[in-house]
């Protein structure tokens, strides 16, 4: 039975080895105040438990070997208990519990302390199966890639229109459920959850929906980009002044609009797209035309500076700057993007976006297939990637 002890040692080594390596969603390498607090607590609990485990395993292994029955053994003495020992192993664990509870309580209140005045509020909405980020101060809405300035406290307001999700970016520390916040009784505010922390290093962090939310729950990931204050401001400015890239390619065809109306999409007020030509790649121009004028995309997606103002899907402004696609599950490149537009369900079953081949009926209503040729899909992809 010393096998037990030996096996334990090997497994312990394995565990330690696993902790040492840097994986993007590793919870043991803190990069925010929040995560740091938790990490210290984790380490102290780790050593307490290892100590207890070692004590129990060593005694167990030793007892099993030492007191195994042998030929000609005497009857063992009847020992019914030992008051001193029993008090000892009641009080000992109780003290350890207290030793763990005190720093835990401190950490609870450190990670849930009231929000500081200068914190930047961001409204996070968990949708099935993507994340929406709205910056009320800046008037920005983006999706799936949260951009944060370093060293500025942020206060995330978490809400959802459908089921429970959970916002989780391990290296920045937070995991908190995103509860449904729809339809509350009159005069009541929805019960938002809040998550408050200060990122302390610039970098690229992985996050994830951590509460089971349906078929594609496993594909509901996200990224957090922590940038310097200047970079963050520059990004915000780019967003606000987003050209929607390229002016309209020629006068809009009124027929297309009626088609759209028939598909249940309200015709958009014609805003002249006031911006200069950034790129006159004909494929991009064609894609833009399709996106804004021919397909149903704009009913769900918004692109700042264009007539696309839908809010059922991710806001695609500056989409070309995104590193990932479809809430962090695909690299953002022309092939993946085209494949996604053609058939989102191939990557994310039950996602609330119709592909080009089939109709979709879901919580967002009825959506006809978009019916685009491969060429057209490539053009739309090129257009979206040009949004920088």
């Amino acid at each position, binding site marked *: 039975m010393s096998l037990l002890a030996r096996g334990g040692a090997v497994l312990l080594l394995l565990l330690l080895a696993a902790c040492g390596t840097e994986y993007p969603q590793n919870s043991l390498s803190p990069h925010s105040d929040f995560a740091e607090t938790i990490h210290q607590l984790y380490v102290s609990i780790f050593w307490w438990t290892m100590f207890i485990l070692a004590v129990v395993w060593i005694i167990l292994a030793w007892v099993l070997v030492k007191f195994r029955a042998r030929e000609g053994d005497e009857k063992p003495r009847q020992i019914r208990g030992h008051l001193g020992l029993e008090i000892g192993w009641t009080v000992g664990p109780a003290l350890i519990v207290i030793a763990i509870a005190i720093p835990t309580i401190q950490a609870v*209140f450190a990670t849930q302390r009231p929000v500081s005045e200068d914190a930047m509020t961001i409204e996070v909405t968990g949708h099935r199966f993507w994340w929406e980020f709205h910056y009320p101060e800046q008037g920005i809405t983006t999706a799936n890639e949260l951009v944060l300035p370093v060293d500025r406290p942020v206060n995330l307001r978490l809400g959802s229109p459908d089921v429970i999700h959970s916002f989780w970016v391990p290296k920045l520390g937070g995991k908190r459920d995103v509860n449904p*916040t729809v339809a509350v009784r009159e005069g009541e505010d929805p019960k938002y959850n809040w998550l408050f922390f200060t990122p302390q290093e610039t970098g690229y962090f992985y996050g994830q929906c951590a509460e*089971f939310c349906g078929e594609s729950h496993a594909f509901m990931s996200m990224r957090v980009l922590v940038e310097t204050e200047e970079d963050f401001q520059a990004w915000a400015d780019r967003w606000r002044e987003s050209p929607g890239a390229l002016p309209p390619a020629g006068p809009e065809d009124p027929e297309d609009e009626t088609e759209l109306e028939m598909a249940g999409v309200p015709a958009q007020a014609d805003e002249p797209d006031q911006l200069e030509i950034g790129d006159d790649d004909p494929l991009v121009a064609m894609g833009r035309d399709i996106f804004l004028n021919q397909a149903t995309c704009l009913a769900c997606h918004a692109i700042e500076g264009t007539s696309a103002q839908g809010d059922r899907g991710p806001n695609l402004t500056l989409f070309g700057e995104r590193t990932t696609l479809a809430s962090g599950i695909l690299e953002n490149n022309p092939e993946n993007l085209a494949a996604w537009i053609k058939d989102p369900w191939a990557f994310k079953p039950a996602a609330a976006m119709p592909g080009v081949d089939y109709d979709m009926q879901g919580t967002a209503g009825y959506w006809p297939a978009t019916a685009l040729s491969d060429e057209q899909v490539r053009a739309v992809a090129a257009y979206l990637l040009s949004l920088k």
Partner: protein
Amino acid sequence: MSQTAIKTDWDFPAFAGEGHHEVGFIRTYIFSTDHKMIAKQFLAMSLIFLALGGTLALLMRWQLAFPGQPLPGGGIFPDTMAPGGIILPEFYNSLVTMHGTFMIFFAIMPLLVGVFGNLLIPLQIGAGDMAFPKLNMLSFWLAVPAGFMMLASFFVEGGAAGAGWTAYAPLSADGEFTGVYLGQQLWLGSLFILGFSSIAGAVNYITTVINMRAPGMTWFRLPLTIWALFVTAILVLLAIPILAGALIMLLTDQTLGTAFFLPAEGGEPLLWQHLFWFFGHPEVYILILPAFGIVSEILANGARKPIFGYFAMVLAIIAIAFLGWIVWGHHMFMSGMNPLLGTTFMFTTMVIAVPSAIKVFNWLGTLWKGNIHFTVPFLHAAAFVSLFIIGGLSGIFMASTPVDIHIHDTYFIVAHLHYVLFGGSLFAIFAGITYWYPKMFGRLMNTTWNRIHFVGSFIFYNLAFFPMHGLGLEGMMRRLYDPTQYGWLAELQPWNVFITYAVFALIAFQVIFFLNFIISMWRGEDAGPNPWRANSLEWSIPSPPPHGNFERIPVVHRGAYEYSAPGWDEDFVLQNEPPSEEAVQ
């Protein structure tokens, strides 16, 4: 029932079946009211569901190790589950949900409560049967249709429930979200019916233990199995109705248009979590307290020594059961709970470590200076102690609210719960089955094969579940259909493949156990009345015991753990053995 009125100088009667009217096949094997037969029926049922739950686990592990690759022989699945043998995400979600549901409600719970409760309570307290034999029969015959209903949900339109075994609302409350309508309703109905089965059992156990103990069987002479089962029955009686209420509310949300848990119409999804876990945490102890009892029994038997700190062991069981009611919030630390409330739950949860530690150290004390015989049941019981402690200690991480922020809903939790339910409950169940098999069937299981099963299970169990701690800390979340979707998890994929192979091996060793179990019924060695040379009352009568168990009501003279008492030739004395002249007290 005055003690003096009872004849105490009786010897082993050879009376199998004597004096009882013959009953037909159906009354003996199907609608039996004999507690031993009902225990065997529960055993058969729950082993079948255990095998089913294991099969579901195999399918999941295949998908996790080899996502997108067709399952060998997967062609038999319809296109709604696994077209071309490739498991669909919605089917995977059903697998996750149903694996948990079958294992917890239809395998481990009936094994511990249904089988050992039925078998041991009358035998160990010296009663002829349960207080309400017909209710007992009803209890089994409610569990069976509940199981079929659960099973049937795989084959209805939309497939089986896919909202997780915890069925969090609103995901579970509106079929719109999962595409599962009827399947979820069958799930709810099935558990509702099963609840009545459990309640009927619990009422019976409580009444029987209180009223039908043999003369001289005082509360503190009871075997710890009986204490554990008695306290468990109280938990069942109090916890199941809460679940039943919640299930009905969810069912009406699904079918009648109520909105208890649907936020869109003003419902409160968090209410489901509170109700579910207010039932769910006591349920955790329903699944572990009987295991504590079984393990105590077998460790003392293996060490040939009285249990160390019997009284403290009883108090610890009661304390754990009590504390179990005030910790449910630890499942909801992430739900946005007020930090003060969270801290309270954190503290009550950690306090459970104290009675748990008392139990572990008392077990070690029992083995200390013993004369340890490594019987197969003993091996399983010792493994229980070594594995349960891992599950208990990983629980401390989760109890610590801030640390839980990281590990909540990751594979760390999956590791923890399998250390408690497999390393804990299931190893205790193996200990119990191998220990009482001779009492149930009159024959011994084959020891060699049993040892092989033990070694294989112990090794591959750890290889399968221990690495999950690491995966969880790396950020691998649970209920994850395809880990390779994430770049960094794809790098860790070798671990998932490794775990899957370990699970394959683990299951292969369970096949050995099943075969041994069945074959030994005919081919096993004759067991005799007391193969383990144990003290409690069931070992004083033939194996299997006849209808009515005891020819005369036994009179109990001592506690259940008088191993190696001085003054006796043997190192055990039956509880009903009259005191001998020479025995020194």
